[in-house]
């Protein structure tokens, strides 16, 4: 120890002495601090049980989106010895809840782009391919490349597919051109939508905002695009140049009654005309006309800008398989029990995310609630036990009403409001939910992918 070190040591000891602490106390306290810091940044942050169930089960997860990655992380953490395989060709990961902000020029595309590789846990075997066929009677799936993958337990997390071809005249290529926009479901398409929205915001004209029949992911997205476009016009002082129409397929705007009441009053107040029972069937991009299947017959309207939301369904491979529900109301979607998320006919099959045939909940917020339930029940099944976890239908939508404010709507199967933060009223517009949507939910989403919430 040189002279300077001795000086420092005696200075530290003097300082500790002044505070009535011994060197031993100091070391103990700093050790505690280091432990806390370690805990905060290491695996100790994982909530839930610290158990690891031993098994040699072969688990296949189909789809590496929000639900698939989240399931992979949790299963990998909670099972020891399991052989976990994840199947998805997609390398990029899209933060889809950010697409409404991209399509209205609030965010740039880069903010929604990520890589699946960052979230696939080591120890999970990732097959870069798509499942083309499900064979649940023989516990196997067959991929596009003809590979057969056998499993003991299957987790289906494929999300859904957007069926552009179900709107006559519509195609993915059209998006961003000739006044056609569509916020679903890739960052590149949302960016092209912003081009069309931007032009409409500047030039005005007639704007049509549509919504299809049937289940879609984030039912709030078409509403948010409408309201944000209107807000952009007010911001640029061009609102008077535009006529705005919202055309839902039925007689309501939103499934949760209080939010529906609010929107049904708010839209006309801000000059957005609602045309009930107007599902879009066709567009003619050259003539700039759109046709709707109304109770009084087909109705064709002119537009300068149209936001097309095509009908959505389970991906073809699942929809045409034995795993799909054969009857309404969830025909074509994965047939699971709405609470346990276990398949009704194949006890070793579970589902999470948009693919599930459940009454509500095609949102990332639902994924956050569904994944722990589906994973927990699969682990119970592996151990030969009864299902112990139950999903209550939780879903959430930060309904952006204007640039800078939103309503945080959270509800369950009973359509009752279930605010996570009771101090934030789910009935009023606030700045806080806007900040959450704009700044915090991406962090929450990533924490979910890492299985931490």
């Amino acid at each position, binding site marked *: 120890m040189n002279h300077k070190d001795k000086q420092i040591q005696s200075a530290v000891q003097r300082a500790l002495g002044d505070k009535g602490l011994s060197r031993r106390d100091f070391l103990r306290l700093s050790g505690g601090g280091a432990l806390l810091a370690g805990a*905060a940044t290491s695996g100790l942050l994982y909530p839930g049980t610290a158990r690891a169930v031993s098994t040699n089960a072969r688990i296949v997860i189909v789809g590496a989106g929000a639900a698939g990655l989240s399931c992979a992380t949790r299963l990998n953490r909670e099972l020891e010895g399991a052989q976990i395989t994840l199947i998805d060709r997609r390398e990029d990961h899209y933060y889809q809840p950010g697409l409404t902000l991209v399509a209205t020029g609030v965010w740039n595309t880069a903010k929604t782009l990520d890589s699946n590789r960052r979230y696939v846990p080591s120890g999970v075997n990732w097959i870069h391919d798509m499942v083309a066929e499900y064979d649940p009677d023989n516990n196997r799936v067959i991929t596009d490349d003809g590979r057969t993958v056998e499993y003991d337990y299957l987790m289906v997390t494929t999300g859904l597919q957007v069926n552009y071809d179900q709107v006559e005249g519509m195609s993915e290529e059209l998006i961003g051109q000739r006044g056609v926009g569509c916020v679903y479901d890739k960052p590149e398409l949302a960016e092209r939508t912003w081009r069309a929205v931007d032009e409409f915001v500047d030039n005005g004209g007639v704007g049509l905002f549509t919504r299809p029949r049937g289940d879609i992911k984030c039912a709030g997205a078409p509403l948010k695009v409408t309201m944000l476009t209107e807000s952009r016009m007010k911001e640029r002082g061009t609102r008077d140049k535009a006529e705005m129409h919202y055309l839902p397929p039925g007689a309501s705007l939103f499934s949760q009654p209080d939010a529906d009441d609010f929107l049904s009053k708010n839209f006309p107040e801000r000059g957005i005309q609602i045309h009930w029972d107007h599902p879009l069937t066709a567009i003619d991009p050259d003539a700039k006309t759109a046709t709707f299947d109304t109770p009084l017959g087909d109705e064709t309207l002119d537009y300068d800008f149209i936001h097309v939301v095509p009908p959505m369904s389970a991906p073809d491979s699942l929809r045409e398989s034995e795993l799909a529900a054969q009857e309404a109301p969830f025909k074509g979607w994965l047939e699971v029990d709405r609470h346990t998320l276990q398949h009704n006919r194949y006890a070793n099959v579970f589902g999470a995310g948009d693919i599930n045939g459940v009454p509500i909940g095609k949102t990332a917020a639902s994924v*956050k609630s569904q994944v722990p339930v589906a994973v927990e029940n699969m682990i119970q099944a592996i151990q030969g036990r009864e299902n112990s976890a139950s999903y209550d239908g*939780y879903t959430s939508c930060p309904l952006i009403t204007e640039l800078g404010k939103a309503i945080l709507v959270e509800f369950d199967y009973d359509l009752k409001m279930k605010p996570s933060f009771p101090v934030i009223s789910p009935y009023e517009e606030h*700045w806080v939910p806007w*900040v959450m949507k*704009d700044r915090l939910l991406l962090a929450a989403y990533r924490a979910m992918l*890492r299985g931490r*919430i």
Partner: protein
Amino acid sequence: MAFSFVGILAVVLEFFRGWFWLLIPLIVLDLVLLGLFFKRTSGRRRKFSLPFKASIGFGVFTFVMALITLPGITRSSWEMLAGAVDYLSLIGASVGFGVLFAILAFPVMLHMLGIGPKHKPESQATRQSPAPETETGAEAEPSTASQQPQG
């Protein structure tokens, strides 16, 4: 959907993950500055009161600036704030920024304002006339002459 404390911590960590490139060097710099301060001041008097007050001042300034600018920075505006939740959140966030910046500024302030005169050897101290007492008892800078060996 209730968030557990650990869940909130995980989200906060994830939120700051994108800022680690800035935060970690800043924290390291602050720790180095603190270490250097103790090294530089061994055998000298350390003045904590003035740097502390200056850091608080800096924190208060940051708090006021945050209060004024946060709605705009979040692409919103003051008109969008409605009800106690929004105002209390704004105040809370501004206080958070104020405290953070005050903490980050403290080591810098220590270097600028916290280095006092050298301790006098016992023999000198008894021969010297006592320096006038200040609020902290250590902040009056003795004259250069009084620091010279009295020989």
